């Protein structure tokens, strides 16, 4: 269960990072609203969320296995994030 939780949180972290990029920002808010300040905050939030998952995994599985697990969770979370972006873009195009 902890893996599902960690993947969901990491996917949110990746979504923060994606929304800080001009190419994907339009999926979340008008691309013109992506100010330098907002970009910085989104990047910081995304990085902190992803980094915090190391601590969660280290607490649950120990430092070594936790770090290995974290890499695996990031892989799946990134794929989930990209699929989420695809679905959202598809929905927006159909509207």
């Amino acid at each position: 269960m902890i893996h599902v939780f960690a993947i969901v949180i990491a996917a949110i972290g990746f979504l923060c990072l994606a929304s800080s990029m001009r190419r994907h920002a339009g999926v979340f808010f008008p691309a013109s609203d992506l100010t330098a300040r907002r970009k910085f905050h989104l990047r910081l939030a995304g990085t902190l969320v992803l980094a915090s998952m190391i601590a969660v995994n280290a607490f649950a599985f120990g430092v070594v296995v936790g770090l290995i697990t974290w890499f695996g969770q990031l892989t799946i979370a990134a794929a989930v994030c990209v699929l989420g972006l695809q679905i959202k873009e598809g929905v927006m195009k159909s509207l």
Partner: protein
Amino acid sequence: MKQSLRQSMSVLHTWSGLIVGWLLFAIFLTGTCAYFQEEITKWMQPELTTHADSDLAAINAVEYLQETAPDAQTWFIGLPDDRKATTRLFWRPGENADPSAPTRAVLDGQGAAAEIRDTQGGFFLYRFHFDLHYMPAILARYLVGIAAMTMLIAIISGVITHKKIFIDFFTLRFGKGQRSWLDAHNMSAVFALPFFLMITYTGLVTLASMYMPFAITANYKSAGDFFQEAFFSPDNASPSGMPAEMAPMSDILRVAAQRWDGAKVGDIRIISPNDENAIVVLRRSTSEAIGDRSPQIILNGVTGALIKASPDQSAALATESFFVGLHAGRYADWGLRWLYFLSGLGGATMIGTGLVLWTNKRALKNQKAGKTPFGFWLVERLNIATLVGLPAGLAVFFLANRLLPLDMENRSDWEINFLFIVWAGAFVWAAGRPARRAWAEMLGLSGGMFLLVPIVNAATTSRNLFVSLGNGDWVFAGFDAAMLFFASAFGYAAFKCLKVKRPAPRPVLNKRAGLPAE
């Protein structure tokens, strides 16, 4: 003309990936399946329903060996655990033994004799990913090593080539032809990049002493001396010729439990059983820690007294043990095991999309030129045969497990033979058909084969998907569900393949008139 570093790396990436791509795909796919080798073996031995008890299995296995091979030189007992359902026995027969007599047996999870179908199960997939098949294992390991080293080159050159690694990180565009394949290739490569680097490098480490034997040959009389020193084994295990009664296995297991704070024993080796000099070597289960070189203890087989325990590993050996363990993932709980499996599938996807990309890039040019070079034709057919034919072969491997007669001679060999017959058949089929049709037909066939697996399982055993779900039998339910998932994925891909039309080549403009050239 002088090329930039990135251009040079691009060429290196393309050709290093292509030349060993099909072999790498097979290694990655079977190696990925091997993360669930025990679960696959369980599914392929549906007769077994007993709960595993490793201590009871050890005691009963020794009783079985006393009856079956009391004069053997060595007994080897692989114990069951939470994942392994069977007790696996091997023995080196005595000098006067009948050479045609069996030297191995499979007992149930409690060490009792059981009627189990002859199958190699998931163990075949595990062995195939580094020993291949139908060839000497040494040759195969060199081939696999060359492929792994080439993969390392392809990964590093790919990272240098991919100039927009961060900008394109979340980019996946569907329905854009070659661009979509490139996105899929980049995405699958970048997301699990740490895993690919780790799995390729540690894979090489597992066979490092074979690929780089120079330090051993320079410092030891023989490789055997090195392994004796590095991997701990009894000093003198030659039989005295004086018969003696063995110490009870329960006492021996108690010593191990005390020594390892209750950790499970993984396997037992008994040298010179029923002899005054009998020695018992116990190895801790590899699921207890990441390192694959588990600690061992050596006991007197007659008195049960501890003779010696493996010393603390040197830094070099501990590092090697960690790398091998990291590669094999035997320590992983079910969640991490799935992460290993999904990352491995990502690797197969990366290799597959890279191979398809090679043909896609050249297809339009060939279409314009109006001719298909033999190299292109061969790559396209090998792509179809390997990327779709091998998965179809795997599905047939599972089907053969259920459909071949139980009393068939060399049954387990024929399960494997069917895999390769289908794989080779896929190439023959692809060679005789237009590529696009062959893709769709083979994808459809693969989907159909995977769909048949749970259906045939339901028809030939009492453990169908619904019964398994009802019983909370997650191994059988998970396996059947995975087969249905792959059936859907291949079916969908076949459907898309039939629908997509290859773009017509752009007309070449007559520059002076601005009209299409004749």
